[in-house]
Each structure stands twice: as structure tokens, then as C-alpha cells.
């Protein structure tokens, strides 16, 4: 064999061997028989790769910084705009939710006592005076609202119509110092007279017999006595009991059920016929 033929044979032999090895590796790897071998090789490679990458990354970051920064800024602006939109949508949904809750509570209240006919009214103003407690509503004589009609809200009693014009009315709140309403306590069944305390002063149920054991948290309801208010309208809850055995009567401080400062809508009860009790108090009315 001449040397040229020998070289040619070695060249082709190498190619064939390498091809066979490659195919063999492929087959073996495909059948998962080369894992250990390649792990032996891969482990140091990945370790080196990791070190290299970690040392290259800062450099690459610096190199790509202007491009990345500008795209990041653009992305932040885009995301900020989306956040703003979502926040606005969230606020709108909260508003819808609170309006829904309010209407639902009003509906629940109306369905609890279907025999009572009510006119719904919006609160449009508040009394600027410091000595009296009243609110102004957008219903008046034109809506069958008359002086003396009881007024309630979703959570409980609000007051009584004090003055009406054709399109508006003024309600004296139960927290006003001039207000006095006969009430009954829910669990003890004690009766008494609820008096308003004025601005920032708690309401008090007075003239409660000592034989009753009052409890803090007891519900206070209208008793219907006196004929000015329908019975069983929630007024509030007992927050404190003032009991002294040396006295003839005890009294209870009441936390109103209605937040008068946050009132937006009220119901005027228009089909309640109050009893005229003036005949018992005013001798001229006979």
C-alpha cells in the first residue's frame, strides 16, 4: 500500500469512527444510558458557565443599559397608566358597591314593614345652628309630606317632620334637645322617655323603673305610646346604664342606630296617623 492510499484510508476511517461514535452516543443517550457519563462532563462545564455568566452579567448590563433603561421607563409608564386606570375603576366599583349597599338596606327596611307607606327623600342640607339638630330633605307638601310625620332611615328612627314647604321639608332629629320619644327596651321590656342630648351629647332614656335590670347593648325601640311614632322602630342601643338604688328611677345612655352626620336618604312615613293627645295637656282644647 502506498503512503497516499494509507492516509486516505486513515482519513475515511476517522470519519466513519466518529460518525459511528456519534450515532452510538445518540442511541445511548436516547435510551438514557449516558447520564452518568455526561453528568461527569456537564458538572464542571455548568460550574464554569455559571462563574462566567455571573462575571459577564454586570458588564452586559452596563453595555445594554441605555436600551434597557429606556425600555424599562417606557414599561413603567405603561404599567403606571394601567395602575391609574385600574385604581379609577376600583374607586368607581367601590362607589357602586356603597350605593348598592345603601339601596339594599333601604329595600330590606321597606320589606320588613310592608304595611307602612313611605316616601323616600334625599338629605339636601343640615342645620347650621349649634343649639338645634335638624336636616333638610327634598320632599314637601307636594309629595304628601306633612308636619309631624315620623321619619326613619335604613338603620332606624331619624326624627319627625318639623316644617314643610312645597318641595322641601325640615326634620327635627331625635338627638335634638327638644325631642322626647316614648321607647321600650328590647330584652328587659322596660319603658321610658328618650331625650335628645344635642350636638355631641348622648341621648338618654329617662324614667325607667328600678325593677328592670338593664343591659348594655340592649336594643331601644319606639314603644308607640303617645301616638306620635309607630311602635318597634329601632332607635339605638344602650351604651351605659346609670342605676342608683337611692333614686326612684334609673336611666340609660343610648347610642343612636343612625349616623346623623352621614345621612343621605331617609323615609318619611306618610300613612301613620298620629294620635292627637293635646286634649290631655292643653285645657283650652276641649
Amino acid at each position, binding site marked *: 500500500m502506498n503512503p497516499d492510499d494509507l492516509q486516505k484510508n486513515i482519513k475515511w476511517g476517522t470519519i466513519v469512527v466518529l460518525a459511528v461514535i456519534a450515532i452510538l452516543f445518540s442511541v445511548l443517550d436516547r435510551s438514557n444510558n449516558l447520564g452518568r457519563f455526561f453528568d461527569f462532563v456537564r458538572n464542571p462545564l455548568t460550574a464554569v458557565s455559571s462563574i462566567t455568566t455571573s462575571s459577564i452579567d454586570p458588564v452586559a448590563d452596563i453595555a445594554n443599559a441605555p436600551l434597557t433603561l429606556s425600555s424599562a421607563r417606557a414599561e413603567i409608564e405603561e404599567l403606571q397608566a394601567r395602575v391609574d386606570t385600574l385604581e379609577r375603576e376600583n374607586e368607581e366599583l367601590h362607589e357602586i358597591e356603597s350605593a348598592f349597599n345603601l339601596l339594599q338596606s333601604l329595600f330590606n327596611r321597606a320589606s320588613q314593614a310592608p304595611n307602612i307607606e313611605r316616601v323616600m327623600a334625599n338629605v*339636601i*342640607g*343640615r*342645620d*347650621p*345652628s*349649634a*343649639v*338645634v339638630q*335638624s336636616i*333638610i330633605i327634598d320632599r314637601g307638601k307636594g309629595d304628601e309630606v306633612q308636619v309631624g310625620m315620623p321619619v326613619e332611615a335604613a338603620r332606624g328612627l331619624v326624627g319627625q317632620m*318639623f*316644617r314643610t314647604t312645597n318641595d322641601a321639608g*325640615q326634620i*327635627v332629629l331625635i338627638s*335634638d*334637645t327638644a325631642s322626647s320619644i316614648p321607647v321600650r327596651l328590647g330584652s328587659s321590656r322596660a319603658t321610658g322617655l328618650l331625650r335628645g342630648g*344635642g*350636638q*355631641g*351629647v348622648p341621648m338618654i332614656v329617662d324614667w325607667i323603673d328600678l325593677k328592670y335590670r338593664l343591659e348594655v347593648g340592649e336594643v331601644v325601640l319606639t314603644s308607640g305610646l303617645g301616638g306620635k311614632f309607630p311602635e318597634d322602630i329601632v332607635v339605638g342601643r344602650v351604651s351605659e346604664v346609670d342605676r342608683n338604688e337611692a333614686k326612684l328611677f334609673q336611666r340609660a345612655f343610648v347610642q343612636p342606630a343612625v349616623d346623623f*352626620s352621614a345621612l343621605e336618604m331617609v323615609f318619611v312615613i306618610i300613612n301613620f296617623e298620629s294620635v292627637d293627645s293635646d286634649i290631655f295637656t292643653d285645657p283650652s282644647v276641649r
Partner: protein
Amino acid sequence: MGSTVYLGLPLMAILALLQTAVFPRFPILNIMPQLILLAALAWGLLRGVTEGVVWAFIGGFMLDMFTIAPMGLSAVSYMTAVFTVVFLQESLPSSRFFAPLIMAGIGTIIVALTYQITARLLGYPLILQTFIHLPQTILINMILMLPIYWSMSSLYNRLRPRRVHL
């Protein structure tokens, strides 16, 4: 004075509406500013005691339209405050900054006292809560007095241009 009455009527009506229908929705420190008092005080400081008291009368009655308290209670207390404050101002050095501030503070105290005393005389109970909130009310009124005073001053200058001597 006639023209300022015509001006005072709609202005005080608007302020009364703001004070009863708008500001209660946005209380500052849980306090409602007394816009009518401040406007009447500012006008009194600019135009003299008579016009100030007339504006206080109009504004007070406008406010009394929205309350179940006796009619005229606010008018009496505002008129007393404006009269006293404008009277006091004449004996103090004039300043476009400090005078309105001090007068707003004094006016607020006088209104609170007069209102409570008059209401007590009419059979209403004394509401101590008013006095507890008095410092906040004074502060809010003092803060609002400057913009109101300057607005009134500019209105006054437009109504009555300065006389030029040739």
C-alpha cells in the same frame, strides 16, 4: 349703601346655601366654616360698621331660613359680632393681613357667646360642645378670612373706582 344691599342679598343667599348644603359634606376638622360671618366682617372692615351690620343682618336671616332655631338668632349674633369687631378695628393699626385675621378670631368668639346666650334666654339648653370646638372654628375662620377679605376688597375696588384728582 343701597347698591351694596342689592349685592349682599344674592351673595348671602349663595353663601347660606354653601354653608348648609355643601360644606356639611366636606367638614374641615369636623367644623363648618362660617362663611356668612366672614363675608359680613370683611365688608364691614372695608365699608364701615353700618354696611357690615346690614350684611350681617341679611346673612343671618338667610342662614336662619335653614334652621329650626328661632328666626333671627343668627342675625343677632352676627350683627353683634360685626358691630363689635368693626368698632374695635378703628382703634387698632390698619393692616391688610393681620387685622382681618385677628378680627375673624374675635368675631367667631363673639358669635359663639352671643348665640349661646341668646338661645339660653329663649329657653334652649346651653350646648357646651360649641365651646369645645371653638378653637378649631376660630382656626378655620381665620384661615378662610384672608381669601374672603381680599376677594371682598377686589369687589369693593371694582364697585367704587378710586377718584382721580386732575
